């Protein structure tokens, strides 16, 4: 018993050093430093537009954008809801599609060799180029936006999940086979949870791509949504409205990204301190 305690103490001791160089400074730095940089940029931008003759339709001042955000809030909010709906449905469809593709890819070399080149090729196709086609096929409503979004989201999910499902330790699989575990048990008790940290990496990339996907979908044919609003404001040379919509898109992207991180931490509490101990 005392020996085990020794081992723990050794492990904890090693950990202290890691904390001094790694985490201690990082937490506040990660928040304060970007905020500081952003403040500097915004202040410089504000000063520049006040003391120069640049007209609002070229570059509106930050204060003007904020004023517009407040004044046109009702319109901006309605359009945000439309875009958020597209992002949400497209993301879920993309994730389900991505996971469904990852399973056969992880289990079968033949499927992997057959599908992977095509999947990679599908990512090389610029979505903005096929979006008009999708509108032609699927109409002006929600459908083409969801398809574009899902097409962008599924790829990182498929790649990370297939990688995760397949990377289970050989000996562990032997151990499970030795007690005649069935494929469903091996998948749900081991492969799937094992792949979750990697899948969440894919989800974080996917959620930012989902925002881009929804906007691209709206760009080519829509009568509402923040992407539509961008195009609309641009044709009117209403750059203040354009920037206001842009800021909302950024906020949506960042908040969704953080949300995925929060869900990950709630679902995988064991993964957070994966690296905190150095084995002795």
């Amino acid at each position: 018993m005392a020996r085990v305690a020794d081992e723990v103490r050794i492990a904890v001791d090693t950990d202290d050093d890691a904390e001094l160089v790694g985490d201690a400074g990082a937490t506040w730095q990660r928040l304060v430093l970007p905020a500081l940089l952003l403040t500097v940029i915004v202040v410089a931008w504000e000063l520049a537009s006040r003391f120069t003759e640049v007209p609002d339709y070229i570059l509106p001042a930050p204060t003007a954008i904020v004023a517009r955000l407040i004044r046109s809030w009702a319109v901006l909010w309605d359009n945000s809801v439309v875009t958020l709906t597209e992002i949400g449905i497209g993301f879920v469809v993309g994730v389900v599609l991505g996971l469904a593709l990852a399973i056969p890819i992880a289990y079968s070399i033949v499927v992997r060799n057959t599908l992977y080149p095509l999947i990679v090729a599908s990512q090389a196709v610029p979505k903005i180029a096929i979006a008009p086609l999708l509108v032609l096929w699927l109409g002006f409503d929600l459908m083409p936006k969801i398809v574009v979004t899902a097409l962008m989201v599924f790829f990182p999910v498929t790649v990370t999940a297939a990688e995760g499902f397949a990377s289970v330790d050989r000996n562990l699989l032997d151990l499970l086979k030795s007690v005649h575990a069935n494929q469903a048990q091996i998948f749900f008790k081991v492969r799937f949870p094992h792949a979750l940290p990697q899948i969440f990496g894919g989800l974080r990339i996917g959620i930012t791509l989902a925002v881009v996907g929804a906007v691209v979908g709206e760009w080519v044919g829509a009568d509402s949504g923040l992407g539509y609003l961008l195009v609309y404001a641009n044709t009117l040379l209403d750059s203040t409205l354009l920037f206001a919509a842009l800021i909302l898109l950024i906020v949506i992207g960042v908040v969704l990204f953080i949300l995925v991180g929060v869900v990950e931490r709630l679902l995988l509490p064991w993964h957070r301190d994966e690296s905190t101990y150095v084995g002795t």
Partner: protein
Amino acid sequence: MTVAERADRAATGAARRPQIEVHGVSKRYRTTRSTQDALHEVDLEVRPGEFVSLLGPSGCGKTTLLKIIGGLVKHSRGEVRIDGGTVDEALRARKFGFVFQDATLLPWRTVLGNARLLLDITGAVDGATPVEELLRTVGLAGFEDYYPSQLSGGMRQRVALARALALSPEILLMDEPFAALDAITRDRMGDELLRIWDGSRTVVFVTHSIPEAVLLSDRVVVLSARPGRIRADVPIELPRPRTPQVRDSAEFSRYEAQLRQQIEEDTDGAGS
């Protein structure tokens, strides 16, 4: 266990058929480019309750032999019998417990959850010893709710040992279980295993550490490399129960020297 009890057990064991019988087993690995003989005509018998180490340099096929005994690898020729039956029958009867070089724990399960993994999968209730008690035996009382990432390497291997013991296997197959640990922890784990193993279970223990093999074993089987074949079969007649101090005895050193000589002769032979 007293010496008398041990002698009794050995006598009844001798009367019975060996628990593990390996006869003329060869293993040939085929890749598209080459074939390699991992094992050649290996014969080995292990009695019930015996602790046998397979000792040899890397690549001598000792891990392959262990996995053939445990049914994880199919042999190319020869026969393996467990308690007179086939390896598959033994697997179905859950006679084997495995411990590997890496603990291969599930990071999302606690110590207790990991120790219970095979029980959960088989739907079995606790074996002869409840899992909580097994964890106490391997020195992990109080750590039930820890996650593997919070444990040191030695403690992870303790969990792996408890997991293997949870189904009360008759035969424990250990593949260099302490090889990934630092030297001090490794010695400690050897002492612990000496304490935990009470002679009620057959153990086949793969190692490339001579002192580890001498300390733990009733018999050390030395394998030669490429293709793996049995070079020597050395009974270790140090009295039981053994304490860590047995390492300091002259007899211990004599066994070490004997085994080292066997391995070196083999290496010389390969060189000429």
